[in-house]
């Protein structure tokens, strides 16, 4: 363990009773660089515009008599006011660019700016999805090249590129399974999902018309192979398994699980949310997986964007590939990449597609970024990504396990994320309190209360883009907060104290929802 900061630099020590937050009130409510910002609807005006457009000229009107008469109520701002409004808002956000983002299962890693530059090249950013294919061969090549490397990295047979996000990819995979079963006249009703799974897994299976049943886990936090085998039968369409799982552990028995499911006539869906831990180290195709989505933002670092857009290509086994959705790309013998849609699917021997998941061809803007990421890292770099992600997580695990309960710590190394519980916290203090106190220390909290199988779970995923110095500082912060939680420091219950907002009343928000701004003067 090293000191919080190798350089020895520390911010000024607050004088007793005079910390930064206890100065006099200000007239504006601002605190120097912490700036309050009103709503757009409180500062904008319907007569203000930040875009120079011509005054409406008369002339023909062919709106069919449906002309808008009512006011819309959309306030505008000039350009300087707009820039200031959003810049001020942006400063109320935590972001990877500001610091370590230890969100287990969410994989918040650095977003290379080269990828932003590439995504904005006119040949990618300024092409229409329905242009004649001869004018977009380069765009199709990007999709095809990314698809090729995704297959290479996963050892799978086919890939559906169109799903718009991870959960959309899950749905795609499950629909492939359902289509494959229907093709052989085998109506099965049940999908087995471990209790530790992401909520999207059961939601997806239910949406596709399946009954969802739990798979029991072993005390070591892995799938209970014997119990799973006992449950398999002619009614089970498949299993959905996250590997590495949400406890941060690799499912050692993955191949045996796949073999058992296949022997019982079912299919294996793998939630690839945690593929970043194993990329370049092991291929899901070698473990018997039939379908797996890849969250491009997690493994291949497309920006999270405050909640999206995502992208969720799904790699498929030979058995499921024929059922993959349209459209997709295919390279012919002459090296020309084609767009395969409903009308030419037969030409490309793809007549069993289960349908179409979205209007166009998928998240092109994410494909360019992910491809640039893969090419930048290369074979050696991607392997290093997985190794450093796992190394960083184990370093966090071993540096904290004397202070925080690590339920699966004794059973061996973790993968890319370290799991802790709230065992040993003083009565009345919870994981939530600790997480909110981490905000005061300058961090986004870790994933809380997930997975559900561990009490007061805290799932820490540092990712490979953190330096040792950054980890050391994080560890010092988390140790300090954990110590306070164990000692019963009541001030944790009112944390955060230094954020732009104190704890927000979520109950009130849900009980009397206010989901749009209403002009008080119009009430």
């Amino acid at each position, binding site marked *: 363990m090293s000191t919080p900061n190798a350089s020895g630099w520390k911010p000024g020590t607050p004088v007793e009773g005079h910390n930064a937050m206890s100065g006099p009130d200000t007239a504006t409510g601002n605190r120097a660089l912490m700036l309050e910002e009103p709503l757009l609807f409180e500062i904008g005006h319907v007569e203000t515009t930040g875009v120079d457009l011509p005054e409406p000229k008369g002339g023909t009107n062919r709106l069919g008599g449906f002309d808008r008469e009512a006011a819309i109520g959309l306030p505008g*701002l000039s350009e300087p006011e707009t820039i200031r409004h959003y810049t001020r808002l942006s400063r109320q956000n935590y972001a990877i*660019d500001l610091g370590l983002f230890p969100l287990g299962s969410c994989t918040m890693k650095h977003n290379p700016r080269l990828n932003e530059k590439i995504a904005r090249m006119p040949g990618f950013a300024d092409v229409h999805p329905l242009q004649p294919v001869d004018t977009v061969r380069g765009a199709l090549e990007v999709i095809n090249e990314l698809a090729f490397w995704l297959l290479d990295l996963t050892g799978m047979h086919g890939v559906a590129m169109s799903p718009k996000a991870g959960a959309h990819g899950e749905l795609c995979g499950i*629909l492939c399974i359902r289509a494959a079963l229907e093709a052989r006249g085998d109506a099965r009703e049940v999908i087995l999902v471990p209790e530790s799974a992401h909520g999207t897994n059961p939601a997806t299976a239910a949406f596709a018309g399946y009954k969802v049943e739990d798979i029991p886990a072993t005390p070591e936090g892995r799938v209970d192979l014997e119990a799973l085998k006992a449950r398999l039968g002619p009614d089970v369409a498949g299993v959905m398994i996250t590997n590495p799982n949400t406890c941060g552990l690799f499912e050692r028995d993955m191949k045996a699980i796949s073999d058992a499911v296949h022997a019982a006539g079912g299919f294996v869906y793998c939630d690839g949310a945690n593929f970043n831990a194993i990329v370049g180290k092991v291929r899901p195709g070698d473990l018997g997986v039939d379908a797996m989505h890849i969250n491009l933002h997690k493994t291949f670092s497309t*920006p999270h964007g*405050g909640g999206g857009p995502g992208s969720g290509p799904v790699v498929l086994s030979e058995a499921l590939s024929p059922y993959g959705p349209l459209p997709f790309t295919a390279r012919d013998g002459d090296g020309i990449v084609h767009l395969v849609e409903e009308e030419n699917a037969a030409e490309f021997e793809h007549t069993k597609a289960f349908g179409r998941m979205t209007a166009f061809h998928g998240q092109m803007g994410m494909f360019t970024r992910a491809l640039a990421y893969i090419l*930048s890292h290369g074979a050696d770099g991607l392997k290093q990504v997985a190794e450093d992600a796992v190394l960083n997580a184990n370093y966090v695990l071993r540096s904290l396990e004397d202070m925080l309960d690590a339920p699966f710590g004794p059973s061996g190394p973790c993968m890319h994320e370290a799991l802790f519980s709230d065992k040993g916290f003083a009565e009345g203090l919870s994981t939530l309190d600790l997480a909110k106190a981490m905000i005061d220390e300058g961090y986004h909290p870790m994933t809380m209360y997930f997975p559900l199988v561990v009490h007061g779970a805290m799932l820490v995923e540092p990712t490979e883009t953190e330096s040792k110095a950054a980890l050391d500082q994080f560890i010092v912060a988390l140790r300090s907060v954990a110590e306070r939680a164990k000692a019963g420091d009541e001030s944790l219950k009112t944390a955060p104290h230094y954020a732009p907002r104190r704890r*927000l009343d979520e109950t009130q928000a849900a009980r009397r929802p206010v989901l*749009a701004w209403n002009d008080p003067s119009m009430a």
Partner: protein
Amino acid sequence: MRYLPLTDTDRSAMLDVIGAPDVDALFVDVPEEARLNGPIEGLPMHASEMAVEKHMRRLSKKNLAAADAAFFLGAGAYKHHIPASVDHIIQRGEFLTAYTPYQPEIAQGTLQMLFEFQTQVARLYGCAVANASMYDGSTACWEAVAMAGRVARGKKRKVVLSGALHPHYAEVVRTMAKFTDDEIAGGPPSLTPKPDDDGLIARIDEDTSCVVVQYPDILGRLPDLAKIAKAAHEKGALLIAVNTEPVALGAVASPGELGADIVVGEGQAIGVGLQFGGPYLGLFAVRDEKHVRMMPGRLCGETQDAEGKRGFVLTLSTREQHIRREKATSNICTNSGLCALAFSVHMTLLGEKGLRRLAMENHRLACLAADRLAKVPGVTVLNDSFFNEFTLLLEGDARGIVRDLTKRDILAGVSLGRLFPGNDGLANGLLVAVTETTTEEDVETLASALEEVLA
């Protein structure tokens, strides 16, 4: 490798703390026989910024960018001018590299932006509440159909699609309905100057959960939403209005005020570039607040913090998958956050005055273009009504003509043959979109090229 901060010295110091001899010891749970020895085959080794940029630029140059052509494509994706400040704001790291705002104390920037976005969309659509966005217009359309099924409590199984709904949207609905046992009724549109509202109304019956109508429709025409809404409501069905060109709503009445119950659409036209089809921005709103708890997707709401200061949180999450698991209203776990920001910034720059001007300018230029193109021998304008997109009937196969014109750097529009392959009756239809980015010179280029190829 430029993105990986650990040095070999760091790595060995960290392995010492962990008590592992080497990094492979951390992968002990991965079965030996499945482990890859050495770097993955086929993929080259790491590459510099310069090398990657060069490779990607080569691929980019193989495409004809919209700005380099006389450009007339629409059909669900539109080329509009995006003010420079939009891209600047969405590249601020605090927005670009933030997580979903589940920790509201340090995510008020994203949350307040979403609250403003929801309000903008609700007002534009004439609705009470809009959500924080969906993947795109087509998936929002399907989610609306699924929601109508929930409102009908599964007692009504028939979904009536207008023939003039974007065929890819219809295909997404048909695909998903295969798995939910909804019956989907609808076929291709007929090439008439007015939409066949009466034909659509005739297909609504007591078993209909919802009617899905695009406004303006795929041929650019404006259906009579108020009349369809009345007929749907008489049979106890919901009207879902689909809009793929939000700029139109600066010129025509909003679907909500005309009686649509759920309004969904594609928001790409405001703030989001063409990007070969994605990422785009699904918009989703309900006219009546009573339907809020049936909605899919994230919702941002106003509340107070412990000191009584106004703040915002994601709310009503008991509808969502991370809480409700298999009982959730949808499996959706993302919104199109950064695209929603782009939309909101662009809409803020426009304001009501700018949006109305933008809409009227689009309509004016489209009228001029329609008049000019109608003068080309062998060309007829189909539409009685349109906003900024209309259908031409050509004496000849439109798809072949579109292909030929690309050789002259003209992207002439979307042929109905591309949209509705196999429907020979539609083969001479060409959908032409005109926006504020279209110049008179572009129109003249297209008109004279059509004169030549149709001669």
